[in-house]
């Protein structure tokens, strides 16, 4: 099962900066249901900070819960190219991140390909 969420439908801002801004996504995840893959579409968002992404990953980890196994998170249409600062955020959550040919970012937790 793939969970699809369009971020701009929930957070109608072009720059997502604060941890607080990420919190409405928790409710959206609950309503959508957590699948083996979570696709977050960032179309319409033009800037995100490491703080926002860090909070997003914390929310995901809380929503998935322990014992569920690894998750695969796809960030489609990210506002920027993948850089070291976002890789560092992923590392802090025990996740690997890579940029796909189309520009999407894929994050996986340990045990997931």
């Amino acid at each position, binding site marked *: 099962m793939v969970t699809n969420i369009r971020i701009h439908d929930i957070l109608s*801002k072009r*720059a997502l*900066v604060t941890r607080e801004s990420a919190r409405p996504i928790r409710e959206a995840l609950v309503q959508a249901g957590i699948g083996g893959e979570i696709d977050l579409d960032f179309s319409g968002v*033009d*800037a995100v900070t490491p703080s926002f992404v*860090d909070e997003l990953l914390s929310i995901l980890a809380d929503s998935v819960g322990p014992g569920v196994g690894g998750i695969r998170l796809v960030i489609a249409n990210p506002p*920027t190219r993948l850089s*070291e*600062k976002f890789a560092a*955020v992923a590392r802090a959550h025990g996740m690997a991140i890579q940029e796909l040919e189309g520009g999407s970012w894929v994050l996986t937790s340990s045990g997931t390909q």
Partner: protein
Amino acid sequence: MRIQTPHEFHHAGDLSQTYAGNDPRQPTFDKPNVDIDMRGSQFVRPAALLWGAIYPLLAAVNGSKCRLLVPENAGVCVYLKAVGLFGALQAAGVEVDDRGIRMRGDRQLVLPLSRFNSETEVERLANEALDSLSRTGLGAANVHPLVTEIFAELALNAVQHAQSPIGAFGFIQFYEFDYGRRFVCTVGDGGIGIRRSLEQNPLLRDRVAYDWDAIELALRERVSGTGEATRGIGLYGVAEDMKRPGRQLIIHSGIGMLETSEEVETSSRRTGLFPGTLAYASITT
């Protein structure tokens, strides 16, 4: 007490420390009158401009009667007024005689000098900056997200860690020189400085004897005053983004200054006092 700024004023390190070394954050700061004398300055760079806001505002909070003696060069005055320095100081009760200086709209000013105290305000300013960049079309569009992210992260750091009695200030400007075009993001506060912020983490207290040590440490991954496992990415991330061709990051906190760029890698040193923390990021476009 009168602090005279130099002909070319780049940053607080350019100032004679006889008076500028008096720290207006200290309860022992006892100067009843403080003049910032910019009359002889022909060039006032962004980092210097922010010092020109922070120092007198801190002195005013400490009870001093403050005055900015504006540059005799009318063009410099028009610039400083357009950026918002005069208005910010006047709003805080600092005397600024700007009579005859017209308010000029500056198309290259992406975000005028803005005062902020909360993360919500930082996000609002970041969105305003993006809208301004889109509207004016300055620079390359693919750099706009990076400029906004850098400004936002530096501003968030100020709000989260500075404990500044006067809040924080920041602005974004576009420059077009003969040798290229660039965006400059400058953020500053009158807070406790990076060293004292990191000292709040017991694990780091013994590693930050000096301001320059503290700035170097703060730019490493997962170093923060809070000690939380997932924090301490902001300044590290900004520093990593700046280690690319044509980019430069300067952090000035207390008497320490650090510069990082592709050419310099990282170089930290002792310098004149900045009463708080200032970050200056320059991105070529």
